[in-house]
């Protein structure tokens, strides 16, 4: 059943009215663009593509698209720095696209908000791992790339299960202590979000 607080990612569709296209792609998120533009597309003349591989290998394919600008970022953090620079100088009629894991998408949504770009105006596609970014509700620390439940908070060491509740503002699911009522019993961890 769908989680009501979790965003719905509608998938890539080229906004032909945009004057400028800025694309942030992470890992398998690159496929969202490559599959859409298999036969080339006029938008590429006005497109700036930022890509971080995180274990995937789309560098050559993306480069071959021949976009107006293309940059292979070494890390997601470096990608966000470059994106900030681009958005700081972006003009009206710029369209932002993001594809990749949920945590990556959310981080771009947060970043874009600082530049006055509404969440609803960003074109998004969810690709890659189901791993979750989880905030510990107790210590408020964030745990990235969570694949198992329960897991131990890297900040406060509590054993947390992942509640099916997502905050766009925090870009995280909610992690809640699993053994508060049974301090001596910690259920075995199970891979939940591959």
């Amino acid at each position, binding site marked *: 059943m769908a989680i009501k607080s979790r965003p719905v990612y509608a998938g890539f569709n080229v906004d032909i009215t945009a004057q400028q296209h800025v694309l942030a792609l992470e890992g398998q998120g690159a496929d969202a663009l490559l599959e859409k533009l298999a036969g080339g597309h006029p938008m590429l003349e006005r497109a700036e593509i930022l890509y971080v591989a995180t274990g995937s290998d789309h560098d050559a394919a993306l480069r071959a698209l021949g976009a107006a600008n293309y940059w292979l970022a070494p890390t997601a953090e470096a990608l966000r720095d470059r994106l900030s620079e681009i958005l700081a100088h972006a003009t009206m009629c710029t369209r932002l696209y993001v594809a990749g894991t949920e945590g990556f998408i959310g981080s771009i949504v947060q970043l874009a908000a600082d530049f006055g770009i509404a969440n609803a105006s960003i074109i998004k596609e969810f690709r890659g791992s189901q791993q979750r970014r989880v905030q510990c509700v107790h210590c408020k620390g964030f745990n990235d790339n969570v694949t198992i439940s329960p897991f131990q908070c890297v900040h406060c060491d509590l054993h947390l299960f992942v*509640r099916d509740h997502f905050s766009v503002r925090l870009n995280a699911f909610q992690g809640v202590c699993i053994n*508060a*009522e049974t301090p001596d019993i910690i259920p075995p961890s199970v891979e939940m979000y591959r």
Partner: protein
Amino acid sequence: MAMIFHDETYRDDFSFHNSPESIRRYPFPFHEDSYMYAINMENHLPGKPGSSYEHPIDVDEHYVSEMRDRAIVLNEDPKRCQALPHMMAAQWDTLELLMTNKARSYPDLFTLERNGDLWHWINQPLGIDDTFVFGDQSTLPYEPMEYITRQAQGDFCIVDQRNDTLWMDAGMVTCQADWSLDFDIGMNFMEWHAPVPMAHELGIFDRALKFLMNVQQGRPVRRLNWTMTVNPRLDTSPENYHKWGPDKTTVTAQNIGSKLHLRCELQSFWRLPRSNALLFPIRQYLISLNDIATIPKWACRMHRVLTTIPDSIAEYKGFSRNRQLALDFLAPFDDGRELTLGGEPE
């Protein structure tokens, strides 16, 4: 009769207690012998003298101690009180609504003198005497919502209305039933209710949202909600769940009467004049099973309700672990007789 405020605690030694008068005015939430989610809204009209509904904003014998507990929570975790920047007009609306209602209902406890924008507020039980300029937050020691809700029992949410839905954009939340303002702030109505089982599928939230978006100024509405809490603890937040969760394992057949509390929420909804936001006070009332047992109708009814409640709701409300013990405690009060409808004591 002058109100006598208890000096009591909601943590550590849990010295909270209800007087016999306080028991009889308890807003008992079970109107019939079974319970299912319902919107159950009614106009927030004045009730019988002495009841929890007599005044629009109820002040009772626990006021001073509840405000002391709130201050402790805020000291430990300031994020329990937050407001997004666009909510400042709604904050002033909230301050006005609470001050004017309290001063009108309890003139011996609260005084508000207004001379244009220069306001003079006296809160006698808490020993506060402040003069400030309405609309100028620099003249108050806190932002307006925090200032006045440090002086008002219950949690408060201010929800903004736009794009055909409601948004949880401000709140003072220190005595909540296991939800986090810090996590939910900025969410819309469907998003912040995401973890509630069954009610989405029943269409409850669709109907409740439609109803709430049409609440009119000057015509507040109310409903009751409830849960169960072990020990009279106000701060049953998810933030501190690892601290209060273990309490649930301490209930026995011997101590359940004093340990297990019914926690009723009197929720009211007020359209605010400047901001068009809704103020949503969530006023909680605690009562032990022992105290419930002093009202035969309530003990009998509660036995029937807890017998028939679906497992998923018992789980969500967090008392499935102690449900059987509660049933065993209440069973002797259920003699099979027919009970009158409504939550009145008799």
